[in-house]
């Protein structure tokens, strides 16, 4: 059964300031949503609210078509935040194997990790400590985490930060591949990402100081 993400009347605020109100959207399997808007309009907060990391004032987030409908939605999401969630002192491969195991991924995490690194253009660098990589390489290694710990919905906060043009194409290819296998991608970005057939949500930013 294909999945469907349904967000109804979602609202959240930071402190007293409302960030967004009454966000409604439906994303079918293979769908994508680009969240755009200027800095400080609440793109990250929107993603964090979806991920259950920021409390919603009101509204519902539902994921239909998963095996266990009672489980919190956040467990079906894979969140790539501003920060890469990797340890500098561990090697890239160790980091990936850890996340694969920790996320309860079946299969051989070491092999999956190698394949994922190949996919993000870091093949053969698995033995390097994560701290040795450049900023762009670190970002790509963090993207590899989405591949080793499979979740149907990807939440990506500025996935192309610190990446060069070639790597942006690579991210687009990753997104396309994930959608082709019935996944959903929600990406917040202020860069032009070529995601065909994506819905767009432009954050205007409520919190206008008086």
């Amino acid at each position, binding site marked *: 059964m294909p999945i469907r993400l349904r967000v109804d009347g979602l609202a959240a605020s*930071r402190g007293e300031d409302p960030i967004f109100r009454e966000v409604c959207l439906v994303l079918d399997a293979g769908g994508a949503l680009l969240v755009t808007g200027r800095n400080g309009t609440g793109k990250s907060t929107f993603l*964090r609210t979806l*991920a*259950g*990391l*920021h*409390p919603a004032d009101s509204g519902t987030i539902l994921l239909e078509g998963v095996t266990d409908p009672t*489980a919190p939605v*956040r*467990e079906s*999401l894979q*969140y790539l*935040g*501003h*920060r*890469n*969630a*990797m*340890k*500098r*002192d*561990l090697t890239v491969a*160790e980091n990936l*194997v*850890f*996340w694969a*195991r*920790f*996320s*309860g991924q079946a299969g051989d995490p070491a092999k999956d990790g190698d394949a994922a690194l190949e996919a993000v253009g870091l093949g053969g660098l698995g033995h390097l400590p994560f701290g040795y990589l450049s900023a762009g390489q670190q970002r790509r290694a963090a993207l590899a985490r989405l591949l080793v710990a499979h979740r149907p919905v990807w939440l990506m906060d500025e996935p192309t930060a610190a990446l060069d043009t070639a790597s942006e194409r690579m991210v687009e290819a990753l997104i396309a591949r994930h959608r082709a296998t019935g996944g959903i991608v929600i990406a917040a970005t202020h860069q032009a990402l070529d995601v065909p057939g994506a819905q767009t949500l432009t954050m205007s930013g409520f919190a206008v100081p008086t």
Partner: protein
Amino acid sequence: MMALYLRDLKLATRAGGGALTGILFFMAVVAVVPFGLGPDLKLLAQVGPAMLWIGALLASLLGLDRLFQAEREDGALDVMLMQETPLVLTVFVKCLAHWTASGLPLVLVSPLLGLFLNMEPTAIFATMLTLLAGTPAITLIGAMGAAVAVALPRGGLLVSILVLPLVIPVLIFGVSAAYAAVEDPAPFLPPFMILTAITLFFAVIGPAAAAVALRASSE
């Protein structure tokens, strides 16, 4: 879960890890005591168990503030909060790894320091046993403090201040059990059982409270 335990152990023992620092701090604190008290061996033997306990207490508080802060800084905490593994279990395993890397070594070097303080073999053994039973409680209580202070920019010192009053019972029963083993009239078992009970109690309460605090502090 084994993956998390092994990763935390690896991080603690690899370059930059805090495992060695805790032991060193423990040794330094205990070594400073004779300079304050004077090299009177009888007096040192008398205060020995208490000094070992206070040293171990301070040393195990040392690295606690980084328990969740390091995870938060690189964003790993966000991912951990979203897993289907209960957060309580994640916290508990992290505590366990932290104790294995920094609490257990303290227990293991305590007999050596006991010799320096001219303690008798029974006193040394009793202190080691009470430390073994009591230091996990310090880590578990400290995890609550670390979780509460996780979002603060300079939470390090605050964690110690928050946690110290809470670990006083552990100190009281640990030290009294250690003394009871040496001084005849007082029985060893009752305070030791209470100490173990405290540890078990906080093995349940600590991770649960820390999990609540972590969820709350993720904004």
